């Protein structure tokens, strides 16, 4: 027993590092599948690519039980408030991966009906290009997210999500005040942000 010092058995670390280690290795994905990326996502979850290897074993179809929102496909303006509501209902802390060009930028759907990138309505952490991206691409995207989670500070993540809740409260206020439908008010907010030179409403 002689010669053993405290340094050999005790490793001091930051709370952020430990919590983020746990968080990044236990992601609970929620697929928001609206197009062909969701088909690629199926093979990503299945045995050949086996997304479970990265700690995201439990795929959930309820926002209340998940913390990683995978937006797989085109999101129309009418879907925008739905996406916002689902993101709001997810357990905290939560992350978003925009899979495919449609979710990232609107892709080839450069029309009045399509949301030109989901980052206008929800905070996105990682964008995966491709139409649709291969399962390897999606896995790479989530691995990038895991790296990002390793680096992030707990309070910053909390504030980030809190900011979104504030925009949701504003959305509700506007809806009450102007008597608009749910998607109309999100559209108004997007246009308003665009008029001020911005891109996002959260």
């Amino acid at each position, binding site marked *: 027993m002689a010669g053993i010092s405290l340094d050999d058995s005790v490793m001091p670390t930051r709370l952020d590092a430990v919590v983020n280690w746990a968080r990044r290795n236990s992601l609970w994905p929620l697929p928001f599948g609206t197009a062909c990326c969701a088909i690629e996502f199926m093979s990503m979850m299945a045995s050949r690519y086996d997304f479970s290897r990265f700690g995201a074993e439990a795929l959930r179809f*309820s*926002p*209340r039980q998940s913390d990683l929102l995978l937006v797989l496909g085109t999101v129309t303006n009418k879907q925008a*408030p*739905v*996406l916002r*509501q*689902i993101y*709001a*209902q997810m357990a*905290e*802390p939560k992350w978003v991966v925009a899979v495919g060009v449609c979710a990232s930028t609107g892709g080839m759907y450069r029309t009045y009906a399509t949301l030109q990138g989901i980052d206008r309505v929800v905070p996105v952490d990682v964008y995966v290009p491709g139409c649709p991206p291969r399962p390897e691409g999606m896995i790479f995207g989530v691995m990038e997210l895991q790296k990002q989670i390793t680096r992030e500070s707990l309070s910053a993540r909390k504030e980030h999500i809190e900011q979104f*809740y504030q925009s*949701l409260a504003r959305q*509700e206020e506007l809806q009450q005040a102007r008597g608009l439908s*749910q998607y109309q008010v999100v559209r108004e907010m997007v246009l308003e942000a665009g008029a001020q030179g911005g891109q996002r409403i959260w």
Partner: protein
Amino acid sequence: MNPTVSPFLPVLLLFLIALGVGAAILVLSGRILPGLLKPANPQKAKLTPYECGAPPRQEGARHRYNVKFYLVAMLFILFDVEAAFLIPWAVQYKAHLWTFWAMLSFVATLVVGYVYAWGKGALDWER
């Protein structure tokens, strides 16, 4: 073995361990420790009953709906049965005066009901 120790000492130990395990389960898995550790941030969106992203039309699932579906269904069955009687009769019709008047009286009875339903506004969908 020490003769002063009671042979029932293991029973006492087992009892104490059981008590300890029970208390540990209560503390660790119950509301006490998770209540302190778990992050809780209830939001309006999280407290809504549905998870499909659409706003709920009313609170809860227990609500009343219009009975006009029932009325239309009943009228449909009535006139469906009429047609079910009429078609085999028309196929087998051999120009017997008696069967002609019998079927006409049957249809006339239903026409009275039809006129009554019409007069009551049962066929009026927008009411």
